Structure formats: C-alpha cells, structure tokens
C-alpha cells in the first residue's frame, strides 16, 4: 500500500512514462550484476583538478571536466562564462548512487561574489569522475 501511494505521486504523467520507467528499471537490473565493482572514491586531487579545469577557460579542459559528449557542440561563450566560477567540492560528502554515478556537495562562487552551497552530480567516464550538473542543494 505504501508503495502504491508513492507511485501515485507520479500519476500525473502519461502511461508511457511508466512504460519507460519499466524499461529503465529492467535494463538497470540486467546491467547491475551482484559482482558489480563499487564506485571508486572521489579523491581530493581529482576534486581540485575538476575545479581547476572547469574554470580554466580552455575548451578542451572544460569538455573533459564536464563529460561533454562528442556530438555536442559546446557554446563558444561557455568556457568564458565558466571561467568566472570558482568551484570547490567537499569530498567528504561524496555519495555514490551506483558504481558510475554519484553526488557531492560543495560551493560555487561567481566572480567576486559570495560562495554559495551547491550540489553536484558526477559520472565515472574513462575511469575518472567528471561533473554533470551543478545546482543549489535540494
């Protein structure tokens, strides 16, 4: 019954959503084997590297830090805008979602502005954690 109530929360969406969710869960279950390796930790060195790369103003480093897929053309203004950010990740708050995704808390400051608390999501790609998104803590 409790489960039913929770599901009710998403009932506003179409049934197709549920079909899609079914697919997602299935595929994940299939992919997640019992012996799946645990997520590697986010080291302080990697956290600092990510902060440095994303603020570097260099397109290549930004793409590496942000896990930008090959097909995506980065907005030419993005590296410059990101260079005005200062990002610090709190590795102690690192929480794996599964072996390949995680969240971490930290701060973002813009130009000379105050630092603001932030929540980051990360993905493990090519053996390294990369930033996916950043937003205020929920």
């Amino acid at each position: 019954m409790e489960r039913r109530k929770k599901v009710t929360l998403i009932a506003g969406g179409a049934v197709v959503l549920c079909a899609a969710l079914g697919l997602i869960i299935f595929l994940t279950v299939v992919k997640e084997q019992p012996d799946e390796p645990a997520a590697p930790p986010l080291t302080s060195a990697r956290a600092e590297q990510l902060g440095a790369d994303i603020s570097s103003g260099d397109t290549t480093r930004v793409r590496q830090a942000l896990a930008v897929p090959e097909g995506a053309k980065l907005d030419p203004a993005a590296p410059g805008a990101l260079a005005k950010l200062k990002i610090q990740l709190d590795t102690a708050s690192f929480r794996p979602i599964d072996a390949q995704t995680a969240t971490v808390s930290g701060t973002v400051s813009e130009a000379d502005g105050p630092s603001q608390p932030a929540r980051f999501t990360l993905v493990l790609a090519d053996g390294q954690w990369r930033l996916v998104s950043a937003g205020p803590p929920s």
Partner: protein
Amino acid sequence: MRQAAMTVAVLVATAALVHPAAVAAAAVEAKCHSPQPIAAPPGAKHPVVLVHGWMGKPGSMDAIREALEKGGRASVYAFDYHAYRNNWAADAVIADCLAVFIDTIAQASQRQPGKVFVVGHSMGGLATRYASQLSVQGRPVGPRIAGLVTLDTPHLGSYWGGTGYAHLLTSILGPHSWDEAPLPDPSKDGVVCLAHHDATASAPRGDSAAFPSQCGGLPPYLPQTAAVFQVSGQVYVERKFWGISLYRYSLDGDSVVDTSSELGYIGSGPPPANGTKVRYGPVEMTQVECTDNTDKIIDAASTLAGALGKQILSLTIKAVSLIGDNMIMDNVLSGTVGPAYAALLAVANFVTGCSHSKITGDVQTVKATTEKLTSWFDAIDNPMFAYTNPDGLTVVRGTKTAYRSNGEDCGALGNFYGDPVWTSDGRYVTSVWSKCEDDGLGPPHVDDNVLMTIDTRTGTKRQVTCGCPTVAAIEGSKVGWIDDRGRAYTLDLFGSNQPAAWPIRMPAGLYARQVLASADAAILVQASSRAAGNDGFAAQPDDQAGAVVSVSANGDVKVLQRYEQLVAATAAGGISTASGPQFVFGTIDAMGDCGHPGPVWLTDQSGNQKLKTDTSAIAKGGEVFLTDVWVSPQGQIMATLSSSICNPSGGTSATPASLWRLDGQKWVSVDRGPLAYVRQLSDSDKAVVISGDLYVERNGKGTRIAREVYAIATPPPA
C-alpha cells in the same frame, strides 16, 4: 428529454454497425454506452469531438475544451474509452463506438448534413481514422468528419509500443496502476499494435517491422473531404551547468513519438489497390517546440528515484553526460532506444511542457489547435470563392469582398480576362489579364498578358508576365501555362519564385497552344498544327487546325480529337478520381451564321479514350454549348449547358443555360436556370451568375454582390 432520447439513439445505432472485420455488433452494443448523454449541438455551433490517447481520460484535454468553448463557435464533446486500455484503436469498443458517437452528433446537428471536427491525442487520432471507415445504419462515418487535428499521434507507431516494456511494468507495479485501474495486459492489442512499424513491409526502417496482423490493418486515410492537421511536439534539452548554457539538442519528437511518426499521416495508410492512387484531403502540419534544461531533468529524476529507485537517477545522469546530437541521430537512424536515452526520454516526458503527456495542455498546442479549427469553421460559415469581372480578380468570403487584384482597364482597346483558377492547395487564386498597349494593331496582345495572383492567407497580390491565354493548377501551389509562342512554364506561387520551363512534349506536327484544364498533374492541351511565328499564335493567319491532347503526369501524350478548324474550347474541366484524372471538354468546331459546338466529351481515367456524353436532354433539336464544368464537393461532375438552333439571326435558344449533372455518360437536369455559372459553397450557400450578375444565395435568399461577372471558381474541397 431530448438528451435521454439521444442516449438511446447511441445504443440503437450501435446495433447497426458495419465493420469490415465483421465485428459482432451485439458485443459492441453492450460496451458502447457513453457515460454522458449526447446533446444536440446548439444552434449554429460546430461540433468538435475530443478523443483522448491510450490510457488517457477525457479530462486530459480540458485545456482544448475550455479554449474552444471560450471561442463560442464550437460545441465540444469528449469521447471516453479509458476503460478499454487493453484494446487497440481499431477494436470495436473504441473505433466502432467512436463511429457511433460521431454519427450521433452529426445526425443531431442543426446543420445538415452534419459535419463533425475531431481532435485526437496520440492513439485518439488513430481511433478516428479507424472509425472513419465504418458505417452506422448504412450511413458512412467518414464523410461526416470535416477535419481531424492529430496531437502527437503515432501514425507509424512509437518507441514504447510492443510487449517487452509492458511486461516489465506489470511485474513492477502489480496488476493495477496508480488509479486502481488494471494495467494493460502486455499480450493485448493495445500494447502490441502501438509498436513502431513501417506502412510498407518492403521498406523496413531500423527497428520497424510490418504492422502486426491482428491490428485491423493499417489505419485508413480519411476521405478526401476531410482535412488533417498534424501537431508535432518537439522537445529540446539544454545542458546547463550552474545556469550556464553549454549546448542544446533535439530529442527528435515529443519524447514518446518520434517526429517522422507524429507527422507521418501521409504514407501511413493502406497502400492503394493496383492501378489506383491513394486519395486524401489537404494535410497540414505544425511543430510546437519547448526546451527543458538538464538541471530540471536531473531534479525530476531525483524525485522519481525516491519513489521507484535510484536507477532512474543514475541513468538520467549518465544520459546527460552521454547524449548529444550524434547519439540522438544514431538512435533515430537505427530506430533503437538505448537505456540512457530511454531514461532521458522518460523523464523529459514527465517534466517538459510540450512532451507527449503534456501536449494537450501546452499553450502553443492549444493555440494552434483552436486557430486551425477556427479557420475550418470560417471555411464553412463564410466559404470563399473568386470571380473575374472588369474590376479584376476578386476573392469573396461569405458575401464580402476579402481581396481584389484590380485589373488594368484598357478602355476602348478592350480587355481580356480569364477564369479564376485556384491552386490545388486552395491557397492561391490566379487569373490571366490583359495589359494595355495601344500599338494601333487592335486589342491588347496575348503576349502581353499577365497572371494576377492573390495569396488568400495573407492577401498578398502579385503580377507575373505570362504572355498566355490560360493558366492551370498543376499541383500544390504550382500553376502552369503555355505562352503565345508555344513555350510552357510553371510557377510555384509559394514564395517569390520565378517561372521555370515546363517540358511538354507534343506529338509530331502539333504545337502546344494553351492549357485547357488540369487534374492530378495531368493536363488537357489545345494544340495547333502550325508552330507559333515570331509574333505568336495570335498573329497567325486564320489557321485553326489542331487537336485536343491529354498529357499525363509522367508526360505521356494522347491526341483525343483532331480538328480541321478548332475555333475555341468552350469549357474544359479536370476531375480527380481514385483511378486517375478525367477531363470533360467542349469545343466550337466551325463557324457559320453561328458558332457550331461539337459534342461534350468525357475522357476515361487513363486520359487516352474520349467518350461522347449524352446531351439529348439539353439539345432539343439544337446544338449543345458547354459553358462551365466542375466537380461538386460530393465528387459529381456538374456543368452548365445550353442549346440553340442556328439561324441567320444568330440562333434561337432551345434550352437556356442551366445546371446539369453527369450520371454515367448522360447529363441529367439539376436546375433549369437560367444561370451561367453556379458553385455550391456550403450546405446552405451557393454562388450563382445570372445574366452577368453574381448572387450569393443563402438558404434560397440571394444577395447580389457583383455585375458583369465573367466566371467564378471555388477552391478545391478542404
């Protein structure tokens, strides 16, 4: 009392369903009861039926209902089949019941014969297509449908159709869904038939397959009298990082139905029988776009993860880091949906304003839908037609002048103007007009003639020098003509195109002189046996030997009739039929005290054979003159015909100009006139030209709106 009676009517009518698959009518009857009695549409309002999507409910279309009711011109009805979530659109409990629903409303309408508009979301559009092939108590439902708006309808299926996903859903959620209603059984047609497919098994695409055999056949096209407007939701995703935009890409559809399926009406229906051509009415489309950013999508995935597990969030994060335009294109081309892409589609469907689930409430969609329906209402309430007279080319809506392109008045030199000709898409009207040039050689020359054109959507007018005596619609917004030197051109009136050469081959010894009529890109040409000189055909000595030649869409030519003296073609018209184009034409074959018309000819659908029509009811001892020929909205060949007995004083009328219908090969009287031109504009309105005066008659009462009218024409049926 009236409402109760109508409810009973639904049930009674259901018993008389005729279904191609011979569905048991009794079984349908038991399930076809509408929860709401059907009230007759009040007054002159246009009935609009809203048909929700698979597993949806009528309430999901409330935004469209409210907008239409606010507009005050629609009477809105909601068809409810949410109890049949295991069923496919073609099943009797959906398509047959919808057929009864539409027929009942049409029968109750104060406008007769009643016409119904339909807005179908997702599978609701397919249900309407299946319903259109049914009859209720011998009354075909298709002709009752005036127009269909499809909102994200999967004309060619969806990524999410098929059985695999539904099996999983059942295993996860149990036998019931969120609203306590049973989940669809994955083995049932409602799931199976929504699978992505190609209409032609011989040309598979990606994951597509032939349409499952148990699904009632491919959804039929609506009759040609019904317009279709496809609305396609286009979801875009913007990758953001701390509010900074990184890149943006399209999900190629509404996150459930891909673009090619949303806009796939043409090509999704049954292939034509051998030797016939697929027929459908005007099809238009629009795309509504909306964008959501990855922050919002990840937030939504986080929320969903709290209810259904962390995998959703994990896959969505991976999707954001993996998916760019390349991956979307890979998925589109291969027709497959990988797990990360699936996650992104699913969450986008949940949060994005024009996604599949939300499009019925999307502001742009509601606006596009109501505007299209309003334009369709206008076409019925204030039907459009055009006429030519000394003032120029005029477009009329109802009884009011909408647009006019003023023709040049050449005064004593004399004017030349032709019939109004509508493009096949019904958007543009054009007419040949003379340009005044006093060169001392008599009336204005044909080689100075211009095409006057009017865009009836924008009112934009344009003149193009054609040097031609006639113009014909070819296809879409394209027209064609032959100039006074025998050179043929086409011009697409959409945009600011310039004329392009039109390769028309004539048989040896014949030279194309003017286009007499067109149908389905085939044309009827008057050809001369002498080539145009430097001064054109019009300046030739009196050599009028030639022929009437048909030219098919693929360029095949056939001499229908040769003439020693072809004075003029009196009238000619093209007719689109399921089997091909046909032409009706009449000529004046000789001059004496009078012009002597020949027979009124009808070609067969191949355009290769001509048949002499039976004009005996008109002749009465005289010679029959064809003034005008056209096709009624009901597909009948109509003409105004007269006859006169020649004598030295110019002739005595035997039968005044009057309205006739071709029944087989025999002309039968419809209206004894006198009248020269007539067009049925709507069920209640018609335009009539009597002795040069143009009247619009509404319910038998005429209003004169112009004098000295040369000819009138209505746009192709919409």
